[in-house]
């Protein structure tokens, strides 16, 4: 029980921070909208971290899964005018179904081969978004996605959407934390370290891999639905190979197998370019250099860096009375 309490303290602190952020930013809605976007990415990254950081399975197809959910809800609510709940549930459901169908054969592959297979899947979906013009609106995008409305409350302001997205981040974080402290979490970590040992303990490896792949796709699906109804517009270019690689970067930069780190990575990589805008032509170069330096000097990501900093501080203050 006390361990549960210990877990909940940082979560509560996180909640307070989220609540306070709009006031800290003095209601600067521009930064609020960037943080909303960062929150949407953080949800995907949390799921991807379960898959990559804990179970050790890579996916370069999460950008596509994110897109499937976004397009599904877009088409259902935008083209066919179905209720938002139908769009949201089908968006997440279809994403999970696709993930299951693709995961079943593909998760037998390992390492770079798995990376390639998921990349191929992502590319095929991306081409479908581009070419199924009648359905998706093609390369120029899908216009006219309705504003999100839940039980009569319309999420049309930046503030309300910010709170909505970040409460979903909190839910995703809590469930992920719960999961890694359960037998499923132990099984995932076990199969990451040694598949042989894990299966010799009675862990059905194929099923656990599929489970975490589908679970992470559900996270990506929720993010996709939130994204579509936030921008009210989707285009294929947001769901390509580049985005999938960026998601992986967020996980690794934040810290593999650290859920907090994943959120930090998503926020860092989404917010950083906003500060680099001042440098115009140098922006890309600085972005690349920061990425290189972070990975070189923070091998355990931002989370690892913060932990080290904290323990250094603690040691210093511990010694001096």
């Amino acid at each position, binding site marked *: 029980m006390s361990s549960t309490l210990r877990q909940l303290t940082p979560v509560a602190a996180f909640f307070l921070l989220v609540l306070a952020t709009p006031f800290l930013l003095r209601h600067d809605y521009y930064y609020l909208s960037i943080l909303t976007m960062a929150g949407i990415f953080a949800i995907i990254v949390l799921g991807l971290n379960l898959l990559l950081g804990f179970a050790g399975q890579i996916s370069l197809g999460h950008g596509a899964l994110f897109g499937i959910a976004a397009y599904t809800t877009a088409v259902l609510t935008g083209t066919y005018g179905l209720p938002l709940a139908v769009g949201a549930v089908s968006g997440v459901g279809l994403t999970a179904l696709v993930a299951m169908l693709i995961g079943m054969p593909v998760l037998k592959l390992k390492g770079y*081969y798995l990376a390639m297979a998921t990349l191929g899947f992502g590319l095929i979906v991306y081409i479908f978004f581009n070419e199924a013009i009648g359905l998706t609106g093609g390369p120029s995008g899908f216009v006219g996605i309705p504003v999100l409305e839940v039980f009569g409350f319309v999420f049309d302001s930046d503030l309300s959407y910010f709170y909505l997205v970040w409460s979903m981040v909190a839910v995703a974080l809590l469930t992920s934390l719960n999961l890694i402290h359960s037998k499923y979490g132990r099984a995932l970590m076990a199969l990451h370290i040694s598949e042989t040992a894990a299966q010799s303990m009675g862990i059905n490896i194929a099923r656990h891999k599929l489970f975490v792949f589908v679970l992470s796709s559900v996270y990506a699906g929720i993010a996709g639905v939130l994204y579509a109804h936030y921008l009210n517009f989707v285009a294929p270019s947001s769901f390509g190979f580049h985005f999938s690689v960026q998601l992986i970067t967020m996980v690794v930069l934040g810290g593999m197998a650290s859920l907090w780190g994943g959120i930090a990575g998503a926020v860092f990589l989404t917010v950083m370019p906003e500060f680099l805008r001042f440098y115009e032509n140098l922006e890309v170069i600085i972005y690349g250099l920061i990425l290189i330096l972070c990975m070189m000097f923070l091998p355990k990501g931002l989370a690892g860096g913060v932990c080290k900093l904290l323990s250094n501080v603690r040691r210093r203050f511990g010694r001096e009375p």
Partner: protein
Amino acid sequence: MDLASLLQFLASGLTVGSTYGLAALGFTIIFNTTGIINFAQGEFVMLGGILAVVFMHWLDPGLPAAILLAVVATTLVGLLMERLTIRPVRNASAINLIIVTIGVSITIRGLVMLFWGKDTYVLPAFSGMAPIHLLGATIIPQSLWILGIAVVVLALLKGFFSRTIFGRAMLACSFEPRAARLVGISVERMVMASFMLSAFVGAVGGVILTPLTMTSYDVGVLLGMKGFAACILGGLGNPFGAAAGGLILGILEAFGAGLVSSAYKDAIAFVVILGILLWKPSGLFGVPDTERV
């Protein structure tokens, strides 16, 4: 479909496939010594082409000299990359190193954009643009240059890895770095050599395909991705497989575009690749890794 058209598709597939194959070879060389995938491989190809154009305009030394300069310069970039970003953290985990190479690729793109802008550039063809007629199909001489040079590079690499002591030492590093160190091979030197070699191969690829396909600061992204697909398709770590994977990918795209649908040609190619991977989980010519218990 008549024979001439089929031949034309084949010619297109082989030309494009050779460029994928050369990119894939670069991936293989670095993978073999370090076990990582170098995401900046596409940027080596881009640098080869762009630098050749730059040297042509800047120094105007004639095409062959410009090409030579570009290849040498790109090889030095490979050396610098290893020295500055890989060697200082050589004990880092594979995924961290891969993200480092992503960072390098972004930085290289940014630098090229800064110095030479976002324009598309072209090099003059090595021996004119007059097409050669062959059984109803037409091929421009540059395609033959590409095919020929790709074959020569592959043959040289094969010789290098199997005949020379240095090449064998590089292979040894990939199998058992500790054992390699014990028998007196400097793994650091081999890793450095592998980065230079793969930058060299990439630059050669970039230089020979620029007259045909043109180049700009961002061509490396797509070539890198296709090259990665090719070396996985062929079986990671096998140079012959990488080259074959490239050719197969190119041919799949050409025939997919010509016979089925040009809109879905990449999708067709990747569906086939997925099928092959499910059938052979270690690629066409890869050795399945047997897990020891």
